């Protein structure tokens, strides 16, 4: 039994007996910690993992609480029905809010959440039918299969069962195909898109998920207190929820519970201590919270969880053997026309970065695209992969015009790429990083991931990732953190990730940049091996020596135009190319 499992067992046993032995006050505190944990869990997913910030979660708690308060007291609905009603309402509102703010750059979401957090608070306080600032009282208790939950002790089990289920669902979710995509949102959006992740949709999903957890917490809160008023749903409460998530940190879902626990107990203690110390009453704990948060962000930005978690190492999961490997796409015949650029043009304002460039490449070929600095190579790369849109001409891939498609749509047609500056998720393992490459080859979504109903597909994806890691020769580093690898290995890892997407064309953006001699040799060896297995490679490169020994044909660019095209030997002796590289004698 690992240490983690032992502590978990002790925790569960404590939660089981707590209502039987602890005094009322402690039970109330535990109940609140459970309720806050649910909201903080959503924020760990949203902020800690996904890199999106919301100060408005308290408003979603309020939505859940007020929906049930109004419908149960005025219309006499069963709390179970109003739970669904509250979740449905939260779903609709959060999808709308997420849709309008998540496409904008990072800071609009938090600002938006502050604004509608305030807006909803004043709305609760001024709606006549919601009881104004006095609120709604005498809510019915929840009837759980005949047991009336009319005391904190009885409520304890319901709160913590739901909180732990919420925790489990997020834990499961993060350990899945969708989870890897979510973990890529922070710092890896461009990379994730190029492997078929719809990052905008993923952002909305985690935002809605966090909102629904907050709404659930609100429903429980309303029936625990059997009374609601606007105060607990103010923007300050929303800020405290975020504080809990930051204190806990993103390293583990347990951070949410620990953050909620620390903040709740600290607040209780400060609310007792500070007014006595200062001789007046008020929310003075705000000062301590504010100062603590600033210090925490200055000194330990990842919260306190990383300090805790290394005492509980998780063993590497053994790979599950699979009977069916992932299906592969049909490969083009060697020599078939694969990629063709026809008078492709890209203008940035008045600057022509690529000027009517035409070339084509065949299946099974390694084509090098070279040129001096500023020649427009990277722009061509971005035009082919759909990161940029051409302003003229065509890009044709396997007979289909692709230059109006998104990078996601292009990836789906069998192109996979690496990046000039490695785009890895350093805290994830090599295996998980490579598995992102196979994102498009799986189809199971967030719900089945949260319930872990997608284990057979997940095993297939991981097996494929492990196979590609073996193929490029990184098999020994399978469970290593990607950030710990040397640069050369990181570039190889990127190739494995691209291979995981089952591409027919591999695009490599300066793969030899910054590599040592030995690393370059093993990279060249790997690319030759891939070619012998039928892979086509388009290579943008600076390193002449590396390119000349490797490629079948070369396209040379200068000032956005094609200077020459041909076999490496021809290019090496081409006077125009020599002049562009070495400068001519006038």
């Amino acid at each position, binding site marked *: 039994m690992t240490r983690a499992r032992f502590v978990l067992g002790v925790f569960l046993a404590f939660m089981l007996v707590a209502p039987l032995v602890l005094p009322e006050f402690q039970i109330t505190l535990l109940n609140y910690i459970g309720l806050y944990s649910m909201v903080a869990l959503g924020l760990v997913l949203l902020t800690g993992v996904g890199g999106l910030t919301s100060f408005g979660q308290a408003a979603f708690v309020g939505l859940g609480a007020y929906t049930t308060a109004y419908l149960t007291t005025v219309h006499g609905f069963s709390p179970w029905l109003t739970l669904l009603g509250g979740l449905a309402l939260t779903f609709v509102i959060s999808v709308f809010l997420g849709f309008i*703010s998540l496409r904008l750059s990072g800071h609009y979401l938090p600002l938006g959440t*502050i604004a509608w957090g305030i*807006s909803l608070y004043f709305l609760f306080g001024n709606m006549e039918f919601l009881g104004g600032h006095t609120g709604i009282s005498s809510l019915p208790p929840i009837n759980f299969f005949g047991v009336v939950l009319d005391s904190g002790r009885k409520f304890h089990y319901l709160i913590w069962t739901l909180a732990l289920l919420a925790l489990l669902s997020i834990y499961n979710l993060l350990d899945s195909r969708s989870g890897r995509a979510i973990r890529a949102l922070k710092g890896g*959006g461009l990379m994730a898109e190029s492997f078929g992740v719809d990052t905008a949709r993923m952002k909305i999903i985690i935002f809605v998920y966090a909102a629904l957890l907050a709404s659930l917490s609100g429903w429980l809160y309303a029936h625990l207190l059997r009374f609601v008023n606007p105060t607990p749903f103010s923007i300050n409460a929303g800020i405290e929820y975020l504080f809990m998530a930051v204190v806990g940190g993103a390293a583990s879902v347990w951070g949410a519970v620990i953050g909620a626990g620390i903040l709740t107990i600290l607040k209780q203690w400060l609310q007792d201590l500070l007014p006595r110390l200062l001789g007046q009453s008020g929310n003075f704990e*705000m000062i301590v919270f504010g100062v603590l948060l600033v210090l925490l*962000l200055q000194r330990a930005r990842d919260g306190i969880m990383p300090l805790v978690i290394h005492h509980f190492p998780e063993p590497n999961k053994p790979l599950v053997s699979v009977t069916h490997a992932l299906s592969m796409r049909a490969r083009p015949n060697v020599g078939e026309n694969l990629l063709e650029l026809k008078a492709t043009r890209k203008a940035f304002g008045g600057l022509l970065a690529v000027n009517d460039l035409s070339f084509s490449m065949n299946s099974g070929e390694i084509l090098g695209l070279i040129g001096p600095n500023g020649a427009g190579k990277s722009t061509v790369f971005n035009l082919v992969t759909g990161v940029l849109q051409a302003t003229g001409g065509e890009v044709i891939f396997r007979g289909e015009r692709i230059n109006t498609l998104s990078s996601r749509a292009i990836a789906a047609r069998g192109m996979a790429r690496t990046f000039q500056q490695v785009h890895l998720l350093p805290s994830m393992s090599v295996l998980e990083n490579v598995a992102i490459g196979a994102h498009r080859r799986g189809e199971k979504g967030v719900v089945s991931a949260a319930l872990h109903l997608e284990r057979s597909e997940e095993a297939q994806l991981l097996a494929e990732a492990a196979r590609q890691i073996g193929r490029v020769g990184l098999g020994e580093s399978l469970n290593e953190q990607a950030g710990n690898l040397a640069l050369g290995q990181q570039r190889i890892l990127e190739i494995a990730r691209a291979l995981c997407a089952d591409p027919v064309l591999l695009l490599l953006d300066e793969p030899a940049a910054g590599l040592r001699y030995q690393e370059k040799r093993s990279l060249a060896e790997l690319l030759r091996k891939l070619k012998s297995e039928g892979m086509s490679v388009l290579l943008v490169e600076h390193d002449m020596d590396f390119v000349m020994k490797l490629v079948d044909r070369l396209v040379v660019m200068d000032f956005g135009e094609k200077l020459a095209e041909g076999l490496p030997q021809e290019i090496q002796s081409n006077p125009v190319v020599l002049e562009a590289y070495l400068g001519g004698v006038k």
Partner: protein
Amino acid sequence: MNAEIALFLIQDGLTNGAIYALLALALVLVFAVTRVIFIPQGEFVTYGALTLASLQLGKLPGTAWLLLGVGLAVAIVELTQSLYLGAAQRIPAIVFKYIVAPVGLLWLTWWAAPQKPALTFQIFLTLGLVVPLGPMVYRLAYQPLANASVLVLLIVSVAVHFAMTGLGLVFFGAEGSRTPPFSDAQFKLGVLNVSGQSLWVIGASIGLIVALYFFFERTIYGKALRATAINRVGARLVGVSPAMAGKLSFTLAALIGALSGILVAPITTIYYDSGFLVGLKGFVGAIMGGLVSYPVAAAGALLVGMLEAYSSFWASAYKEVIVFTLIIPVLVWRSITARHIEEEEE
């Protein structure tokens, strides 16, 4: 609604809108130079208003003690750093700036306050007590994180807002204050009664905007701030220190905040936590300008003021709801006009 009420509401909206516009400009300035979304802007409004209110009652404002406390905290940080770096020659300047000067101001205020000096002197004293808090807050909270992402800086801002609101409660108490107007004059303009206070607010706002314009166009420090806003690394390479730019922009923001507080104090009752909402209304304006455009931010803030005036007439209970919900159409519009998903930093 008749024409008279409509005109009155326009006057009301313009008066508040002018203050929001000032705050919006400060927010755009701070964001452009430091990438900090300056949520605590509103607390400077509160501190300015409540400090002046204390002085008018002949009481020693709590900000005098607060300034000393924050000054001591900065002094400790700076002295530790100087000793660590072996830069002992900086110690006298630090002691003077962060300990002697705040003590001097405390003594001056303690001596002057009971004598109820002239309004101009009170205003200068208020600014002297509140504005230095701006660069001090920058030094303590933001400077160690100057290279963090916008989101981390935003969370810091919210934390600073929390702490400053709480400190406002400690030093000013829970009761609200309202100062007498600068001028009781009333002008007849057709059917409309124009109050002297409105003219003061609008005039002072325009004056401040013009002064800021000259500061940015004509002075070397203004140009240094603009350079930092356009290209942080480039500005640094030609000798503009990011810490200086940060402190300077926070000083300006604190000055604008405190002045706004002084202007708004005779119009509404200000409590220790009122500044937050006032500042956020400036934000709604600033967001319309995408946090980058000064003219759009100012125009947006005026619109917020107008909307607030009219909604307080039609649906006064829902005034705040309407103003803050305005951000939703603004976000929709910005989201439609946004060209692509922007890649996050970090």
